[in-house]
């Protein structure tokens, strides 16, 4: 309603509540997850796609979100001190190692070699950093108490791996790969557990965080229950569960639906996290 109420009342954070921030976070998670899982499975299509989505999604939208994108190189000034700076370095390194990795994959035609393995491991580690990084970044925002929790990086990481498995499954079209589907289910359950832990942590935390919990449960109940929980967790869990139990056929369409719902869930998660960020009264 107005600016001044802001700091005597709770006030929503606006600085990072932009579509580009949302897309940056969501696409980063999707691309990163896909890259990590595909790399672990040596699934080339997933590796290439994941790399592209992560680099382009994160890179472009991060740039768009800057007030002075032309000065983006300055962002490298404070590695190890500022999360943004550190992540910029990581993104840069990931770009280099990822490009090399992909190039080696293309050149070697997928044949393993020592060098390829090294780049693979490095790239996966950097990608793991990148998919959890947004959580660390938010956690470092002292002003927004709902974000000041170590659950966020884990939540973001698990969410990323979840969509990663989902999409990989859908891309592989190897519906018989039950292990991957089981992993997906485990990740879904972990994710659900983390989401609820996060909410219960918020509820017991400082006043700003409690306000966010309230916002989440009251003002954002539809995106929370329908979007994140319903579409992002329950539906894929149901489909995957029914599939595993053989109650529905494990068709490729089913897998695509599962992946799609999980992607939607990933978007909802980040949408919610950005929207419930409030400053507490001083």
């Amino acid at each position, binding site marked *: 309603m107005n600016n001044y109420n802001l*700091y005597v009342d709770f006030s929503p954070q606006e600085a990072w509540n932009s579509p580009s921030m949302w897309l940056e976070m969501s696409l980063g998670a999707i691309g990163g997850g896909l890259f990590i899982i595909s790399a672990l499975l040596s699934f080339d299509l997933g590796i290439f796609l994941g790399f592209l989505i992560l680099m382009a999604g994160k890179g472009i939208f991060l740039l768009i979100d800057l*007030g002075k994108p032309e*000065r983006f190189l*300055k962002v490298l*000034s404070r590695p190890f001190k500022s999360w*943004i700076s550190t992540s910029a370095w990581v993104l840069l390194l990931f770009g280099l190692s990822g490009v090399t990795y992909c190039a080696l994959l293309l050149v070697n035609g997928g044949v393993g070699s020592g060098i390829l393995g090294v780049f693979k491991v490095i790239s996966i580690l950097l990608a793991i950093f990148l998919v959890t990084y947004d959580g660390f970044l938010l956690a470092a925002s002292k002003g927004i108490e709902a*974000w000041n929790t170590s659950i966020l990086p884990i939540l973001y990481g698990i969410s990323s791996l979840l969509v990663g498995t989902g999409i990989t499954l859908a891309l592989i079209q190897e519906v018989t790969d039950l292990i991957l589907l089981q992993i997906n289910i485990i990740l879904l359950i972990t994710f659900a557990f983390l989401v609820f832990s996060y909410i219960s942590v918020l509820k017991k935390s400082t006043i700003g965080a409690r306000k966010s919990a309230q916002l989440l449960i009251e003002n954002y109940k539809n995106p929370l229950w329908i979007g994140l929980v319903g579409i992002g967790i329950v539906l894929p869990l149901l489909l995957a569960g029914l599939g595993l139990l053989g109650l529905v056929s494990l068709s490729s369409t089913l897998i695509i639906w599962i992946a799609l719902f999980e992607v939607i869930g990933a978007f909802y998660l980040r949408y919610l996290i950005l929207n419930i960020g409030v400053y*507490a*009264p001083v």
Partner: protein
Amino acid sequence: MTYCMVIDLKRCVGCHACSIACKAENGTPPGITRSKVMKKEVGKYPDVRRMNIPLLCMQCEEPACVEVCPTGATIKGANGIVTINKEICIGCKACITACPYGARYFRDSEIGYFGTELTPFEKVKYAGQPKGVVDKCDFCQETRLAKGLEPACVQTCITKARVFGTKEEMQELIIQRNGYRLRPDLGTGPSVYYLP
């Protein structure tokens, strides 16, 4: 030496003179309110108080904004003042979400109070307010301290509620009047004190 401001809430009448003097001195464009005065109701009718709480950058001892800044645009000086180098700032806004005191503003356009056509005053003053970067109170370091003047908000305060000096100079007043800081639980260590 660390600069410090004390705001006496017993004196303050919530007149906004500080806010507007700051606007004039530092030429802050629409939406950027380095100095602002909040209203807060405490209690229930008829046992209610309406408080006026002037806010500005707290020039924290442990500034959350400095920590997160990826470029080093925001730094804490030896005099305790946290400043923004607008030549370096990339406008990532991490400092805005980091600051618990709502002290930071992002300038997202080049307009003035009357739209794109700037007034003569704005033409002169907005040279220091480029688009795409962040602005905040710097205890008037650039506009006034450098010239040996006290901050504009302090200079104009019509009740003399605002006192400016070094932490050492303020210590006695703070202790004597039970001065306090905002959100001490955050560990930011503000250099702005309030007297009840």
